[in-house]
């Protein structure tokens, strides 16, 4: 007895920004695509913000398609010509190109109050106020609010109470909040604006809801394009026929499932995501199928650290190279799994999606 086979034009291993970008582009081209993913992708842990070069064709292509799709899912972003300095939940600034009237807390804002919610560890207004006070003339005012209701379990009463407090007890006209535990907070934030009469913005926050939201938008886009996403599945082994990958064995819980495809995209991420593993002094492919190599990169301090972070799956003419030394003509690497994509500290979602957008073209050429 066995599970039904997975049959697709393209199998994409990895369900983060890279895998979903490549899958979506291939589906746009009319290919049948199945994505397999497991655990939490680094995308879901990111700030969900990105830096894109408006002069780069692939970046503009990516943005014009995906932002339209995001809009259909209720999220409003615009790609700005010049990067904006967004402020993070630590009060530091980060450059980003995707802006939204709902989310932007930028260095240009004046008359700002930072409101922390007791029980929400994502924003410490005192810390933020001190940090901004160090580098800017105007310091935002810190407030703490202890909500009587959970925004997740009792959304309406939470909004009513917070809206009233922001209107009556907070003097400033722009309020910074931590990310609220909502899949789609746009409605809640809009309601808070209406109730309080204030401009409500969200700090750029990693390891929190914004990353999960971005991940959900990417998944939603892929689903709308007819991409099949199979969660909690892992690539276990490849069936290699000469210079081609002919199929794969996937794990589903305690059992296995065969997959057949014409091309494979590897987008399983770097070391933190588990796409690469650290073994002793080396960074390796956890599947032990492919060779790794590091990209030459300038850097500081430890040569070993630099080489570990800049290592990825080795490729020849864009195709993945096996441990035996040959390259597989129908296996393409996308995103942080590629060399040079994780140094110095992760190149960011912008570089990852552009890399994957281009990788999809490479796959098209093979099919």
């Amino acid at each position: 007895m066995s599970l039904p086979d997975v049959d697709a034009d393209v199998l994409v291993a990895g369900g983060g920004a890279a895998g979903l970008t490549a899958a979506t582009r291939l589906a746009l081209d009319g290919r049948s695509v199945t994505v397999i993913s497991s655990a939490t992708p680094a995308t879901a842990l990111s700030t969900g913000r990105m830096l894109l070069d408006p002069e780069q064709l692939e970046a503009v292509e990516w943005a014009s398609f995906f932002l339209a799709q995001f809009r259909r899912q209720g999220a409003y972003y615009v790609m700005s010509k010049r990067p904006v300095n967004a402020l993070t939940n630590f009060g530091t600034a980060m450059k980003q190109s995707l802006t939204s009237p709902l989310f932007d807390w930028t260095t240009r804002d004046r008359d700002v109050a930072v409101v922390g919610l007791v029980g929400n560890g994502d924003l410490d207004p005192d810390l933020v106020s001190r940090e901004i006070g160090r580098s800017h003339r105007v310091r935002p005012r810190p407030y703490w609010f202890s909500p009587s209701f959970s925004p997740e379990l009792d959304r309406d009463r939470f909004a009513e109470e917070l809206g009233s407090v922001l209107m009556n007890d907070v003097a400033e006209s722009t309020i910074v909040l931590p990310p609220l535990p909502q899949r789609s907070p746009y409605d809640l934030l809009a309601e808070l604006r209406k109730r309080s009469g204030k401009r409500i913005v969200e700090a750029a926050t990693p390891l929190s809801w914004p990353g999960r939201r971005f991940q959900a938008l990417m998944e939603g886009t892929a689903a709308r394009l007819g991409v099949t996403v199979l969660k909690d599945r892992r690539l276990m082994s490849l069936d290699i026929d000469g210079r081609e990958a002919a199929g794969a064995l996937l794990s589903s819980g305690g059992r296995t499932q065969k997959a057949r495809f014409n091309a494979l995209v590897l987008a399983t991420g770097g070391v933190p995501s588990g796409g690469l593993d650290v073994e002793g002094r080396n960074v390796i492919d956890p599947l032990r199928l492919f060779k790794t190599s590091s990209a030459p990169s300038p850097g500081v301090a430890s040569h070993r650290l630099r080489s570990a972070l800049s290592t990825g799956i080795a490729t020849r003419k864009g195709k993945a190279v096996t441990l035996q030394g040959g390259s597989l003509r129908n296996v393409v690497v996308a995103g942080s799994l590629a060399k040079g994509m994780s140094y110095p500290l992760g190149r960011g979602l912008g570089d990852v999606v552009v890399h994957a957008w281009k990788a999809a073209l490479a796959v098209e050429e093979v099919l």
Partner: protein
Amino acid sequence: MLHPENRCIKCGACQSVCPVLRLEGRETFPGPRRLAVEVSRFSRENSTLSSPLEMCTSCAQCESACPSRLPLTDAVMLMRVRHGARSEGGDRMLRNSRQFGRTIAPVSSMRAPSEGSTLFFPGCVGEARTASSVQAAIDLLLSTGDRTYVPDGWSCCGSPLEKIGERREAERLRSINAPLLEAAEAVVTACPGCAVQLRRSNGVEALHVLEYLYESITPARLRLRSSRLLTVALHSPCHLLRTVGPHTIDYARELLASVPGLRVVDMDDEGCCGGGGGVASARPDLALRMARRRVDSAARAGAEVLLAPCPFCVVNLGRAGGVEVRELTSFLASLSESRS
């Protein structure tokens, strides 16, 4: 010895998905990162943890979300054994096991041949608490011509005893079941916990009944039909979805989608029923709160019936009231025209 603490990257993904933490809050239940990783890293002994450790339902959402693939559920269970006093419920399970070979004193037994080729493993909760559902599953298989049987002398799979640290008793039970399982051509059970345990400790390819129905019997042979229009919701049992495998839920959806007259609605919230990990006996208040959360979600989706392919889920969700809860296989059995 488990050392997940060495590979934790502190991303907090486990914390954000933990259904108990989301419901109860960090003050009451610090979450898997604290309990499975930080505790063993920073403290040898802490009796104030026995209370939160009791609250883990072993749903494995944390494990599923962990980018480092840490065995978080096993680590929490290990912490529980190290730090906790055993509850009354645990003592009772051990007594029952020693006396009857079951964690719950058997009330009645299944009507089935005692010999055949497909061994149906009822499971303690199955036989004692959801007997009619288990009987319906057995009858359904028999009606398709399958040579289903329930062997005499089967014992608890051992899973609940392992979870409270009773390794020796779990091993004793395993060895009772071993020859019975070996003699079977196929092993099927309606309890995801049993399926996982039999695979892990007996090394048998124990299939959940959904896997057997879909892969071996096939939907076509079941001839499912609903006599009236009905709106249902499907609860994904944690151990079925994550440990037996996500394909089982795909099978469940396909089986339900193949029934004309049946409308399946999506719930706005995913999560654990609250019945696993010994929580139902150690912390029935928490089990009830979690059950209510799930059932309320089904009610909001407009479901008339909430279906769950797991006896633990059926029992615990049934406590909440509000929406009718039914075990999935017995529900399918009631729709099958292959049953005369």
